[in-house]
């Protein structure tokens, strides 16, 4: 393989139980064609520093493990080519505003808790004659974007509202709620809407669009949240 260039990976290192404060370690990497940041980090793990902690799994952008903060952007390390990044130094840190467990590993438990709060499952009447529920391609296309979410936590980490208010459900959980509210098969929209109808729910979105800018799957959570708001406002009018 041809070595395209040398890159210095500046990797965030911190173990809150051991270290006084975080630091950045530099590792020089020979970048081969097509090499991703994740491959660079795995190379470090294998050869340069065996104590590096990071999450990784599928290496093809579908599992959502390797969400990181790379050169000032929220990215999946496995979908970020080192060649494509400008400059000789590449800056790799954990997802910001999430508690660090070790190095690049952050505590995702609060995030998954939020997702669990919005009744994130389909409540459907059983289909007639034990077959599938009918859903037209048009109805299916409404949730096309929302079902694509891989729960990587990037949007949650990028949203300034989650930085200052830990109780905010956040873009991922709200998108999940929308995914079911908008599903033509679902019958529990009212319950779910009630769950997100709070100052820490849909009303906290300030349309900053950090989530939409950051999402590695090009989902626009703002759109989902605004749709939920409209459903709440129009539903309120209807119930009167």
């Amino acid at each position: 393989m041809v070595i395209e260039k040398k890159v210095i990976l500046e990797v965030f290192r911190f173990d809150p139980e051991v270290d006084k404060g975080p630091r950045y370690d530099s590792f020089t990497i020979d970048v081969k064609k097509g090499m991703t940041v994740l491959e660079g980090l795995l190379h470090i793990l294998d050869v340069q520093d065996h104590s590096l902690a990071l999450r990784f799994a599928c290496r093809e952008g579908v599992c959502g493990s390797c969400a990181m903060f790379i050169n000032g952007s929220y990215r999946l390390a496995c979908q970020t080519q080192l060649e494509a990044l400008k400059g000789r130094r590449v800056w790799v840190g954990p997802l910001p505003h999430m508690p660090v467990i070790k190095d690049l590993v952050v505590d995702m438990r609060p995030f998954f808790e939020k997702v669990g709060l919005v009744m994130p499952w389909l409540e459907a009447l059983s289909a007639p004659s034990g077959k599938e529920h009918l859903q037209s391609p048009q109805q299916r296309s409404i949730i096309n974007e929302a079902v694509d979410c891989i729960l990587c936590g990037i949007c949650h980490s990028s949203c300034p509202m989650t930085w200052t208010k830990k109780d905010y459900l956040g873009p991922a959980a709200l998108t999940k709620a929308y995914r079911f509210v908008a599903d033509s098969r679902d019958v529990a929209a009212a319950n779910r809407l009630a769950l997100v109808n709070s100052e820490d729910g849909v009303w906290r979105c300030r349309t900053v669009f950090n989530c939409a800018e950051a999402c590695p799957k090009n989902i626009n959570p703002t759109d989902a949240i605004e749709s939920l708001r409209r459903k709440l406002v129009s539903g309120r009018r209807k119930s009167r």
Partner: protein
Amino acid sequence: MRSKAEAGLLAWILQRVTAVLLFFALGIHLWVTHFVEPGKAITFESVVSRMQNPLLMSVDLTLLAAAMFHGLNGVRIIALDFGIGSRGLRSLTWFLVIFGVVGFLFGVNALWPFLSTSGRPLLEEAWWSLIRS
């Protein structure tokens, strides 16, 4: 629980309603004061004559009320954005409500010289009428 949910929704709706009101009220206010006759000096008399027009007067009062709500709720939103706690939020909300009511009355008081022929502010007017009686 229910009322808390409604508060978020209501605040959100009112913020938008007042925004629309402000858009028109402030537009008319600015247009009448500055744009109808550009270059013409604003005098006490010109303001009085404007205020004698009940329509324009109500525009300014709407402006005052809507701006008070929109601005103070805006302060609350900023506090939320920068992570105020729930107790802090409650005290802030009460403070803003009181500030808003007082501010509105103060504004009406300040406008009164232009509304009344006596040229005295509302509170003085009230005081004098009390003395006279």
